[in-house]
């Protein structure tokens, strides 16, 4: 018994600093924000009083429901686009790249090495009215007005690009783990290339699809850099609203209420999604 306690003590000692840090600076702040979201501002002061003010939620949602819906639509479209773009790349890196594998993996993470804001500024150049990309899209009828910048299309394009590596890497990790002999067996049993893909490869890579979509969708919903730089007044997302309520309008209660709803909705979406797709992907491997 004493031995068991002695053996366990270092575990708690090793855990203590990190746990403490996360509890004090992540969990407790969430609690404080929950409290703030139910506070009323004492008129004329910048002080707040806790009053179970549920109307904060009602008012915030009534005022900003469009931005809320828009965030989920933009993030959803961007996530689907990321999946479509990332899958072929991850597939090729896992099965066909050979000695090019490391170089291609490097290309996937390379955007991370340029500052997030600077590469979003680069998209401002790429999508500007003078850029050849805009002209081509205009010519084939995809940008009828002749400009892309400051539209929802530009915001979605920016989000898709910025979060693409989050989709490629987990997809690659799960594809790479597939035993090639299983795919060969499928071929030997006269499955066509497409039915091998749909019935063997894709189901086996599902954990990567789940992890990738979550890792893309969650930061995308809360993002406001792309909407700020690439979007116009009609493309503001919920992140922009929370940011300006907190930092310029000092309407803390409304901002806290919005943050909480955002987090709650994401949790619900993630929970439903995991129920359908299985949980191994998110929690990672358990310790041995």
């Amino acid at each position, binding site marked *: 018994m004493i031995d068991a306690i002695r053996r366990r003590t270092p575990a708690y000692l090793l855990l203590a600093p990190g746990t403490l840090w996360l*509890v004090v600076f*992540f969990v407790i702040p969430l609690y404080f*924000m929950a409290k703030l979201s139910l506070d009323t501002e004492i008129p004329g002061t910048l002080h707040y009083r806790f009053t179970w003010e549920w109307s904060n939620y009602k008012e915030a949602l009534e005022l900003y429901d469009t931005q809320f819906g828009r965030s989920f639509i933009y993030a959803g479209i961007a996530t689907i686009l990321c999946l479509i773009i990332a899958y072929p790349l991850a597939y090729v890196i896992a099965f066909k790249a050979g000695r090019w594998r490391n170089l291609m993996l490097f290309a996937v993470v390379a955007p991370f090495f340029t500052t997030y*804001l600077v590469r979003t500024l680069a998209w401002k150049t790429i999508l500007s009215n003078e850029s050849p990309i805009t002209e081509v899209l205009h010519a084939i009828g995809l940008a009828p007005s002749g400009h892309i910048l400051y539209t929802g299309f530009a915001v979605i394009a920016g989000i898709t690009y910025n979060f693409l590596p989050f989709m490629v890497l987990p997809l690659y990790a799960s594809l790479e783990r597939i035993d090639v002999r299983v795919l060969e067996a499928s071929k030997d049993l006269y499955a066509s290339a497409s039915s091998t893909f749909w019935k063997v490869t894709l189901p086996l890579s599902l954990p990567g699809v789940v992890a990738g979509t979550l890792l893309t969708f969650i930061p995308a919903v809360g993002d*406001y850099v792309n909407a700020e730089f690439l979007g116009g007044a009609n493309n503001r997302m919920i992140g922009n609203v929370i940011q300006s309520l907190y930092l310029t309008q000092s309407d803390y209660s409304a901002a806290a209420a919005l943050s909480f709803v955002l987090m709650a909705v994401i949790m619900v979406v993630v929970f439903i999604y995991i129920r359908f797709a299985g949980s191994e992907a998110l929690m*990672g491997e358990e310790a041995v």
Partner: protein
Amino acid sequence: MSATAVDTRPPAPDDAPGRGSLSAETGRARAWRWLREHAVNVVAILVVIYLLVPIVVIFVFSFNNPAGRYNFTWVGFTLKHWSHPFSDTELTKAMLTSIKLALLATVVSTVIGTMMAIALVRHKFVGRRIANFLIVIPMATPEVVMGASLLSFFLILGTPALGFETLLIAHVMFCISFVVVVVRSRLIGFDRSLEEAAKDLGAGPFTTFRLVTFPLILPGIFGGAMLAFALSIDDFVISNFNSGTTVTFPLYIFGAAQRGIPVEVYVVAMILFFGTVAAMGLVTWQQRRAEKMTAIRPEQEASDIVLPGVA
């Protein structure tokens, strides 16, 4: 692409029975077949190009000579921004703040995170599921919520002032989880018989850790530290909430975006890019060497260990 190169050989004779008028047909069929077989490779290469285009744009525009305050359209080539990348004192100060912050956040979060990872992989204890959950949940929370909640916390507590210290607290907070995940994956793939061997040879737990465990998980720790550094130096959203009047590199860019972006921003971004690529190359090289060392099998001759090149 050696694996696919095999498939590019010309079609079997049965597919191309004749010459003359038929050869055009087969040529087209061959091209069609090649495209069908390589479609996925072509798409993958296009995606790689897509990933790299903005980097090329940043590089090219770091040589731009814009007339106004904005660097969005091409005007002309100049080397002047590359010859004086640190002429903007505000930008330089922001960059130095970012580097200092990222270094400190990396050291703290790597030490704390590695300790947590060791506890989670090596020890069975009550509450491990909760500890795992505590590590996953910050990674599943949007940055804007983390930034806003931390600001609420600082506001309600009435902490002295927002600034470098609050930034450091925030950066360590969001880096820990990532360090734990990276170090943990390295520890899971760890051959424990090596530690047992050290113990059998009379090494105490501390000596075993210092001489066996630590060097072997070092690549994982290094990977975690690199990730923490990259996350910290690039963070905008959480910093924007908790910075007070302190300005980091991303915060400087965001502020500058409203009044015009100096070309030096692009130059500094490229310097950062090449620096990171060089550091990554060095770590990969070091890791390969470390893996070669651990790959030495017991049946190998002692001479092989000393001179790996000798067959």
